């Protein structure tokens, strides 16, 4: 794996098979009881994490009105906009990016109906790098496990973080437990997400993410596990248990 910017093509990281898979899911993004149920349940925990980290980084009060006012945010792999819209309500200027045209169409229609101003683009992180864009906050949530070349993708995401900015990433860990719970249980037993959504071999360990971000000038400051309680149907953060999936926060100095 190489992260040399010169040899990168703008669509190198997009996997056409993954794009097709998510096109079929697009209309379900906003149905909380549909195939995105798990993401809807996960949303409060990851939004709180992103808000609190960003507020600490930029010296804001997370409980204030519109705590992210004025900050620019890029949501890579935004899907139907489940995270994009809340960040816009918190005051950020948000750009949502997705390789799947159907997702962008759903996201634009939904944001329009909610009177939210969000820039949605069917584009890749690499294309925005080529345009010379930079953001205070870059999000790569539940996306790196779906791209063809994770190291290139991570380098692109890192390159889009403005000086002083931060990056939040969430994904599955590459452990036996993640395979059992994230793939076998979630896809085949509980049917939370369609079968074939995840390929365990593409999962990354936190150290591998950190290794891909470091050459681009980003330092990982925090990693926390995401733990699911099937009784309360709620997710929570855990400092000790990174075995299944995790949230990671990195900063550019």
């Amino acid at each position, binding site marked *: 794996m190489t992260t040399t910017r010169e040899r990168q093509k703008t669509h190198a990281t997009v996997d056409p098979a993954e794009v097709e898979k998510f096109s079929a899911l697009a209309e379900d993004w906003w149905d909380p009881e549909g195939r995105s149920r798990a993401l*809807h349940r996960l*949303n409060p925990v990851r939004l709180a994490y992103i808000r609190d980290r960003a507020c600490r980084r930029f010296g804001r009060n997370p409980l204030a*009105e519109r705590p992210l006012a004025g900050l620019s945010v890029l949501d890579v792999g935004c899907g139907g906009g489940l995270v994009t819209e809340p*960040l816009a309500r918190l005051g950020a200027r948000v750009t949502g990016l997705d390789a799947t045209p159907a997702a962008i169409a759903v996201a634009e229609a939904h944001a329009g*109906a909610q009177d939210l101003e969000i820039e949605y683009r069917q584009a890749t992180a690499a294309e925005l790098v080529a345009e010379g864009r930079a953001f205070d906050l870059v999000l790569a949530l539940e996306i790196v496990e779906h791209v063809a070349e994770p190291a290139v993708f991570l380098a692109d995401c890192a390159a889009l973080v403005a000086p002083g900015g931060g990056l939040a990433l969430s994904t599955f860990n590459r452990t036996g437990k993640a395979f059992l719970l994230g793939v076998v249980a979630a896809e085949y037993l509980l049917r939370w997400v369609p079968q074939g959504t995840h390929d365990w071999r593409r999962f990354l360990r936190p150290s591998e993410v950190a290794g891909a971000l470091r050459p681009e000038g980003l330092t990982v400051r925090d990693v926390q596990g995401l733990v699911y309680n099937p009784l309360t149907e709620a997710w929570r953060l855990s400092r000790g248990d990174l075995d299944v999936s995790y949230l990671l926060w990195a900063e550019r100095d």
Partner: protein
Amino acid sequence: MVSDNLTVEVAIAGGGLAGLTLGCALAGAGLEVAVVDAEAPATALDEPFDGRASAIALGSQRLLRGIGVWRHVGADAAPIHDIRVSDGRVGEAASRLFLHYDVEEVAGELGPEPGGPAMGWIVENRVTRRALHRRAAELPTLRHLAPARVEGAERGESRAVMTLADGRRVTAPLVVACDGRNSPLRQAAGIPMTRWDYPQDGIVATLIHALDHEGVAHEHFLPSGPFAVLPLTDLPDGRHRSSLVWTERREVADGVMRLDDAAFSREIERRFGDSLGRIEVAGRRWRYPLGLQLAQRTIDRRLALVGDAAHVIHPIAGQGFNLGLRDIGALAEVLVDARRLGLDLGSAPVLERYQRWRRFDNLALVAVTDGLNRLFSNDLGSLRLARDLGLAAVNRAAPLKRLFMRHAMGLVGELPRLCRGEPL
């Protein structure tokens, strides 16, 4: 036709105790709120409008204090220092085996409370209503539309639009139904109810009596149902007052309502005894049919039910208003948390958190109050002995008794932050 359409974050249908309390809680946390109130303020605050008084448990008082309403209640709240539960028959002294709750028994667990130790307060509804109106007027993000009638609500995929009878429209991500036990919005949503009537009516009046009640609330179980005499604040001229809640079989209640004041007072003395001295009735009597109803769901698309719209319970334990206030504490917390995460306030995941949180508490109180009423509203010798022994046993088992007391004070279960005395 007034063309003054509004767009807010939460549209509340109903400006009674529940609707205005929720409105004050949310607007105090910075949310844009509209409360649509069918009554003109002058009517709602007039004495004949509502003669009831409500027991306000400690957890409820903390909520009202936290949202800035309690300071407007001020000295008009009568603290309860002691609750005496007894069993008896008309014309007999109360059973000796009575249950006695004294605030000193739980004082250690409470910590210092502003206003001194109390198990709860009895406040006339019109006093609470006046305090809510005053607080609402202080909040810049609260629009109190009164008088205004809700004609209906169209609850769509991305927003709800409430239509008022005068043609105005209130648009919001969420509509909250605080529109009472016959909630038109609940009915329009087709939410099924579980309900049954008790063959009892509640007769309510204010009593003036010769002796000081010393902060003691009496709950006297008679065969026809509970007979409660609850402490109110003294009149300015120093006369002592209590609030009477007399549960009576419906056919007997007709006769009770027809008695003249003197005869009515003597009937009260026959049931209550002479511990408050000579009793006189002040002002008019009210009569309310008692029933139980519970909504099978408390949420629907962009709709949440609160207070009497969601549940009406037997007044036997004085928990109806407190249950509604815990709904309000939970919903306000769910909405404020969701807003701080940028979530859509009317979206299903947000509303589900409210429904899940409240389900157990609501069901438990329905079951407990119904069970108490069935246990006590009869004159069967065996049950009478069993409940006397039961009351005495509870009185001796300190941990069980403390649990009951904490329940009555609204301090059990997963309490909303406001009911724990914390800010939203």
